């Protein structure tokens, strides 16, 4: 019997190739997209869950009250977790992690860039990373112990045992002892909140923590604790106040505990070891997946019900030859299942083809075989069940309940399958598509707005290089570079767009205590601001001609002298502020030559520059203060190049670099490209949304196309009569198209407020954003209407052009 049903289903499918193609094709595309999103969502949700005791691992987060608001930070005095461990028996272990990200190492005589992690030994107790070979217990003076990943071991030591090998660091102003490889670890899974090719480890007892340090202490480590089984972080948290007291915490500071599995999706600290995901995107994409499936499901319902006249005849016949209702129900549901599984099969073929594309677009490493894990399979099962129930059960119930006498006489089954249901479903489809189109447009506009916004400096053709140990050499290096005709200007600064947060300091007015400002402090040489074409509002830039610009403490020199004399000079050292700083501090005119003696900020104002954006436009420009430096040690050198011969200039710069810094690998980047990196996630979003919108409108139009074809087919006789009575082709096309176009228009009216609301919410995330305008939605709506019109009119024209004699004769 089942064989029989499949046979009927298959023949139904192949005799109506056109409808089947649209039906299954649309469903398969919808399912494939859903599967992709499912893979992505599961990957994102799986972060750090591979650690054995992930439920017990927490990262410490510092919460600080500034101006009545709690801000959160990751860095705080080192040694703190060990102090906590000694206080609480519930804490099983504690550890610290630090990372400089990609670091240069000299392996086998060559510089290579590796993801580096610096940890305490106890790291290996907390994070279950399996050691393939070797150990993590060794220690030796004058050397750092390290383990390397299997991947690195195979790549750089293919023929020899990596254990015991020595790896050298790139020279730096600080001590850079060599590393000894003591073991090989399994590769860190990509769904981990840190990356590591090489993990340097050392004993824990390096720093101790007796009390909250007055000067802030050394702050560079991420600190983790692991609780014993059956302990919850609330248990610890409740007892924290006594710890605050014992260790003399300032009253505006407290600790909180972040589950390690929350780090990837719920944390957006600039200091995070890896750029995190965003739980909001999980929600957005899940919703989009469901919507796309809904659109595909609606196609299925619409086409099935449109064909129900024919199918109900079949049901009627089967009833007269003895089919019971349950047998018919089985047949129709079975047929739907057959359809859906056929679509699923095609979708499963599509997914592996889409994965590389998605991975390159989203910088993710999704793999096909992760489809076959219990969670994903359950997800697929659930999706299909919902799909089958929603799109198949209803038509099946209806068809099987038809009275055979009616359908066999050719009376159309009426009630639930009248055109109204289909109309509503088409409206739903186009509301979703219209909203997605509008969202895509608006995201796109916002992104082009931020990438074209005036930043307050000229970001084009600026090359950035970062030498170490410049000091006195810096000046001659710069002069040497400027000799080349392709290099127009050169300036150095401690500021760099990748790392704009590095130097925030709290500033407060002694007269107005309690009010604090987070200032960004930057050191620049006199050439920096002119090199980047920054605009001066008042006063002057730094200049060699004014010794007062450089007085006080020289942070660039070998020995930083905090002598009384230097400290005094520092108080009247020249500073340049930006406009936001002037406004924040509420300074009065004239600004120039005012001497500030705020807590954290002192000096004589010599210039005010226009605000310039140092960070992503998600944030407002912070108040900024600039000091001049004479001989910076480690800085970013900005070189403004002549657009015509960048290549030549580049090779010249490399030659000079090798001459001045022979031990350092030459590396460069362009300012505009680096700034673009800040909007990577938005650019991905617009591309993904674009794809989703295209898919949504595509699937919707497939359905509309089939529906229009079907309607035209059904109304052949009517069209014939109208033409005989004198209707023109244009009349008939208008007659057939206007119903559908009206539906699309209604859909747009529904979609607009939804898209408006959603986009308004999204734009809140930008400090600088476009205003939503009515014409944006009209534009998006117009696109939807035009696409729908093209879809429908093709069918209508064909029907209208048909010879009325033939169509009337066929009755």
């Amino acid at each position: 019997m089942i064989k029989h049903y499949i046979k009927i289903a298959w023949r139904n499918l192949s005799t109506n190739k056109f409808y089947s193609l649209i039906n299954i094709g649309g469903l398969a595309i919808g399912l494939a997209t859903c599967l992709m999103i499912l893979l992505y969502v599961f990957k994102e949700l799986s972060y750090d869950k591979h650690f054995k005791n992930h439920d017990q691992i927490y990262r410490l987060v510092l919460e600080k009250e500034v101006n009545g608001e709690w801000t959160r930070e990751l860095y705080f005095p080192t040694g703190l977790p060990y102090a906590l461990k000694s206080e609480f028996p519930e804490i099983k272990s504690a550890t610290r992690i630090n990372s400089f990200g990609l670091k240069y190492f000299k392996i086998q005589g060559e510089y290579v860039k590796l993801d580096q992690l610096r940890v305490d030994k106890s790291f290996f107790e907390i994070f279950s990373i399996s050691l393939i070979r070797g150990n993590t217990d060794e220690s030796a003076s004058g050397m750092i112990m390290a383990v390397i990943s299997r991947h690195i071991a195979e790549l750089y030591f293919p023929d020899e045992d990596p254990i015991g090998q020595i790896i050298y660091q790139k020279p730096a102003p600080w001590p850079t002892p060599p590393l000894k490889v003591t073991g090989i670890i399994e590769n860190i899974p990509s769904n981990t909140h840190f990356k590591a090719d090489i993990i340097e480890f050392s004993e824990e007892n390096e720093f101790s923590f007796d009390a909250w340090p007055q000067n802030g202490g050394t702050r560079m480590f991420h600190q983790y604790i692991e609780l014993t089984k059956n302990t919850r972080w609330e248990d610890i948290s409740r007892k924290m106040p006594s710890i605050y007291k014992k260790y003399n915490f300032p009253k505006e500071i407290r600790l909180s505990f972040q589950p390690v599995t929350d780090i990837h999706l719920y944390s957006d600290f600039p200091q995070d070891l890896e750029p995190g995901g965003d739980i909001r995107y999980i929600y957005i994409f899940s919703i989009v997946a469901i919507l796309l499936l809904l659109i595909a499901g609606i196609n299925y319902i619409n086409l099935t019900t449109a064909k129900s006249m024919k199918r109900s005849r079949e049901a009627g016949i089967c009833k007269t030859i003895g089919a019971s209702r349950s047998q018919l129900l089985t047949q129709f549901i079975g047929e739907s299942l057959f359809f859906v599984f056929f679509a699923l099969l095609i979708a499963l073929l599509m997914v592996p083809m889409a994965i590389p594309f998605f991975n390159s677009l989203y910088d993710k490493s999704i793999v096909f075989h992760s489809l076959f894990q219990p969670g994903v399979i359950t997800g697929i099962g659930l999706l299909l069940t919902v799909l089958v129930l929603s799109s198949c059960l209803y038509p099946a119930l209806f068809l099987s309940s038809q009275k055979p006498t009616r359908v066999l006489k050719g009376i159309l089954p009426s009630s639930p399958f009248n055109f109204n249901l289909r109309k509503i479903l088409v409206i739903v489809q186009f509301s979703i598509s219209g909203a997605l189109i509008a969202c895509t447009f608006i995201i796109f506009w916002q992104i082009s707005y931020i990438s074209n916004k005036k930043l307050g400096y000229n970001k084009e053709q600026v090359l950035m290089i970062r030498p170490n140990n410049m000091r006195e050499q810096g000046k001659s290096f710069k002069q040497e570079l400027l000799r080349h005709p392709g290099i127009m200007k050169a300036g150095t600064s401690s500021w760099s767009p990748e790392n704009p947060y590095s130097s925030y300091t709290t500033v407060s007015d002694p007269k107005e205590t309690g009010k604090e400002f987070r200032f960004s402090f930057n050191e620049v040489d006199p050439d920096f601001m002119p090199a980047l074409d920054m605009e001066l509002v008042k006063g002057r830039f730094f200049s060699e001609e004014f010794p007062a610009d450089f007085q006080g403490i020289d942070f660039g020199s070998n020995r930083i002298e905090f002598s009384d004399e230097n400290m005094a000079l520092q108080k009247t050292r020249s500073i340049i502020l930006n406009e936001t700083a002037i406004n924040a501090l509420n300074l009065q005119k004239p600004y120039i030559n005012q001497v500030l003696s705020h807590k954290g900020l002192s000096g004589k104002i010599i210039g005010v520059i226009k605000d310039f954006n140092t960070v992503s436009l998600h944030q407002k420009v912070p108040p900024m203060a600039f000091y001049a430096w004479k001989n910076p040690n480690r800085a970013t050198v900005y070189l403004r190049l002549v657009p015509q011969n960048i290549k030549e200039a580049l090779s010249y710069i490399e030659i000079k670099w090798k001459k001045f810094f022979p031990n350092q690998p030459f590396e460069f980047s362009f300012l505009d490209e680096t700034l673009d990196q800040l909007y990577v996630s938005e650019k991905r979003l617009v591309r993904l949304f674009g794809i989703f919108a295209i898919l949504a409108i595509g699937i919707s139009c497939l359905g509309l196309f089939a529906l229009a074809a079907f309607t035209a087919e059904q109304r052949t006789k009517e069209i014939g009569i109208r033409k005989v009575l004198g209707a023109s082709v244009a009349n008939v096309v208008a007659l057939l198209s206007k119903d559908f176009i009206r539906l699309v228009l209604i859909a747009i009216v529904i979609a607009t407020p939804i898209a408006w609301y959603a986009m308004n919410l999204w734009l809140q995330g930008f400090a600088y954003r476009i205003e939503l305008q009515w014409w944006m939605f009209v534009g998006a709506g117009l696109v939807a209407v035009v696409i729908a019109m093209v879809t429908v009119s093709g069918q209508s024209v064909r029907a209208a052009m048909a010879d009325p004699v033939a169509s009337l004769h066929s009755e």
Partner: protein
Amino acid sequence: MIRLRNIDKYVDKKFQRTFILKNIDLDISEGEFITIMGPSGAGKSTLLNILGFLDEPSEGEHYFLNEPVHQLSEKKKSQYHRSHIGFVFQAYHLLDELTVYENIEMPLLYRKVKTKERKAMVADMLDRFNMVAKKDLFPSQLSGGQQQVVGVARAIIGGPRLLLADEPTGNLHSEQSQQIMELFKRLNENDGVTIIQVTHSDEMASYSNRIINLRDGTIVRKNPYRLIQ
């Protein structure tokens, strides 16, 4: 075999009741070949549908093999349907997606007849109607007469005791019509199948052994056409 008493069939539309059948009393015994005649809208098809359990009378009593049909459950009716009644339609109503063979086999599938037995039965039926060569063709590849032969084969494969035919020759030309009627005649005489057909044609009616004339929903004892004259 069949006994109808005071059968009414009506539809209520707004405040008006329209009778399709009114006060029908009818007895049909096993082995009869009956023709129901009458002008369009007389209620012929409705009566046939009621006799075939496809429709229910609004009022009245309907006995089939002494069972009160008007009191039977849906399930029971469906069972009777399968085992005792076969249908032939004017428009053949074959399933377009199935071949001749599969169309004839269909009722057996619904009755869960075993594969082996089923094959034998279908083969027998094909043989009997000289359709063996056409068994793999689809209905659209057959002539009207051939389609109707398949329709009849499908109707009788389950061995029904009652065959109902609603204008079985309405779409056929005369030669084909005669073939179908000969078929009916043989079924009636050789296999003892009770046949009730609806037709407009006097010629087709002449094959039967009793004619029931319907007019405006009631049975006219004499030939209604003669009354008009």
